[in-house]
């Protein structure tokens, strides 16, 4: 026993030394906790988000002067002596309770200075509540439930536009079609596209989208025949699809995550539903799995998005970052990865402006930051958060687009921009050719 004890002391000494070295190393990095759904039904989007965030951190930490972006020209946070950004990823599986637990762990055990995430609005809701309680800044890159920014939170900022903006885009788009504004399609009488049916997943995000669709369809004079909520984890959606079909809508609207979006389209096909248009509220509709699984069946389907590789044709910086992403991942940036990238970029710029990791300094910097549109890979006018008011913490300069899956000349399925009409990259396919 004594012999063992003699061994224990030096061992502990070595351990203490190693730990001491680690802390001195840690002072040079700034830890940000990132919460995404890395497993579970939305794992596909989780992988996209993670890759986007990692690429942004890589660009922030090394100097790549060719990219026309301030963050790329610097190496690390220059106002803090070139401190490097370290992203600590945790998986919340789309589960709000797990998300809140993981956030606490990140804050208390990993000592992160702030949080980024969480994709699912329901998870962002609980995680932001934890951050608010602990006075830890949180930037939300990819949750679009409008309710998240009308809670008056002082430690919560959202870069992405929310669903009221996006759904408004949809109705402006439909209105524009009836006025003949869509490229390649003559004005379509409103009577032909008047009836709608919507199916939204029933957590925070989908139910908010559902309400927004209900309100806006009235405002714009459309007839919402049927609006259903369903469980995203539901393994079978045939009764939902039949219920939608029974309303005989001209247009079907969806708010779905990845596995349910795929299941929904397959079931629509199996049940031989034939709407003239299908529109998805981003998320599952632009997950890479969506098009790789459904193949040619996606052609003609509309999805709201915040990014399409076609943006690179008009914005150099988008093209440059997309090139790097493509090199890493073998595919183009998506709305999810582009927004995760922008989330990390916003964190970097806020820290640069704050010059300190003190929460109060970060808060002040976030409330006054202005990132001009030319710095961003997404086609927004910039990033500036509302510091007060009913949409506190919301980026006021964001905007959305509507894309349509089409086949390009090379035979690849791509998302072409069809709205806003003035930046459309292809002719609108109407009506949907059916399954």
């Amino acid at each position, binding site marked *: 026993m004594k012999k063992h004890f003699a061994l224990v002391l030096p061992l502990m000494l070595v351990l203490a030394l190693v730990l001491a070295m680690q802390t001195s190393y840690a002072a040079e990095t700034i830890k940000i906790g990132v919460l995404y759904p890395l497993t579970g039904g939305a794992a596909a989007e989780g992988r996209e988000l993670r890759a986007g965030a990692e690429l942004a951190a890589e660009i922030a930490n090394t100097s790549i002067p060719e990219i026309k972006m301030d963050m790329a020209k610097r190496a690390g946070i220059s106002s803090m002596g070139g401190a490097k950004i370290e992203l600590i990823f945790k998986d919340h599986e789309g589960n709000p309770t797990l998300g809140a637990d993981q956030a606490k762990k990140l804050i208390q055990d990993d000592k992160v200075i702030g949080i980024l995430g969480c994709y699912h609005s329901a998870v962002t809701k609980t995680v932001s509540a934890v951050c608010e309680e602990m006075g830890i800044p949180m930037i939300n890159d990819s949750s679009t439930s409008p309710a998240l920014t009308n809670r008056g939170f002082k430690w919560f900022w959202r870069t992405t536009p929310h669903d009221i903006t996006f759904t408004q885009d949809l109705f402006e788009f439909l209105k524009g079609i009836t006025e003949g504004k869509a490229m390649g399609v003559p004005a379509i009488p409103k009577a032909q596209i008047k009836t709608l049916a919507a199916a939204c997943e029933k957590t925070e995000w989908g139910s908010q989208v559902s309400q927004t669709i209900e309100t806006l369809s009235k405002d714009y004079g459309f007839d919402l025949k049927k609006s259903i909520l369903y469980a995203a984890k539901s393994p*079978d959606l*045939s*009764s939902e699809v*039949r*219920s939608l079909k029974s309303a005989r809508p001209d247009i079907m609207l969806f708010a779905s995550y990845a596995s349910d979006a795929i299941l929904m389209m*397959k079931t629509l096909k199996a049940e031989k539903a034939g709407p003239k248009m299908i529109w998805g509220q981003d998320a599952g509709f632009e997950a890479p799995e969506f098009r790789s699984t459904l193949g040619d069946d996606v052609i003609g389907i509309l999805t709201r998005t915040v990014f399409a590789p076609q943006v690179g044709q008009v914005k150099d910086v988008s093209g440059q970052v997309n090139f790097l992403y493509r090199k890493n991942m073998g595919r183009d940036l998506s709305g999810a990865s582009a927004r995760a990238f922008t989330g990390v970029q916003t964190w970097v710029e806020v820290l640069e402006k704050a010059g300190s990791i003190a929460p109060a300094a970060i808060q002040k910097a976030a409330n006054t930051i202005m990132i001009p549109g030319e710095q961003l890979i997404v086609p927004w006018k910039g990033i500036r958060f509302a510091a007060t008011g009913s949409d506190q913490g919301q980026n006021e300069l964001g905007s959305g687009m509507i894309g349509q899956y089409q086949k390009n000349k090379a035979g690849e399925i791509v998302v072409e921009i069809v709205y806003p009409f003035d930046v459309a990259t292809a002719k609108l396919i109407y009506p949907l050719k059916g399954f």
Partner: protein
Amino acid sequence: MEILAGSISAGLLIGMVFALVALGLTIIFGVMDIVNFAHGEFLMLGMYTALLTAQATGVDPLLTIPFAGLVGFLLGVICYLGFVKYLIRGPMVAQLLGTFGLMLVLRNLALFLFGSEDRTIHEGLLVGQSFDMGMGIILPATKLAAAVLSVISFIAVWLLINRTRIGKALMATALNAQGARYMGIPTERMNAFAWGLGGATVTMAGALLVNFWSVTPYVGLLFTMIAFAIVALGGFGSIPGAFFAGLIVGLITELPGIWDFATEMTGFDWMASVPMTSFKYTWVYLAYFLIMLIRPRGLFGWKH
């Protein structure tokens, strides 16, 4: 009218699949009076077996059914000989908690082996095919195949139990295990056989289900609940009962469609805004509750 016809046909079709899922549960209960909470997990393992075999070998998922059945049979026998055999010597509570524990073990084993991601079969002979029969009746090929297999399985199991020596031995064990033992029936082996048979039918159901239903390690619970409702409705231990109760439960899950039909007939706008689809399984559990309250032995029950 089309809506109604579509819903009823879809309800009957899925009902036959549900019945096949419940068949194993009712066999095991009928023979041994033990409720297998891990039943849905057997199904989940059947789904994974079919999915992984099809993906690894490149054969059509339909052809993996015999293999899935074999895996299920072995799984049932192993569970019985290695675990349940000891449980049944204990009190009722031990049996309940024991199979509940088995459920947790199998589910977490699946989580460990396969991860929590949704997996779906995207390619196969029948995947994505459907037949339009007119009148709004659309029969997806995968569900039709599952329904056909369900009917065949029910007939086969019914014949096995009523027309063969081994079936008579099973029946004897079910009615009076001690008496059967005195007559020289190896009841221990009969019990193991019941578990094997129960396991095989449910994994085969899983292998069919995976053609149109995505699989995660958590999928079992939903089916355990549905199978319980079916077995309770049909009567614990009754094989024809399970079949007809399956059809009834299938129709109950289609209540939203019937509601849509009523909405169209009556033309009331408020009816369209009732979120029927959000509660489609609620009605199944409600039926389970009611049958327990009103007729605990079920529609065709013969035990107790």
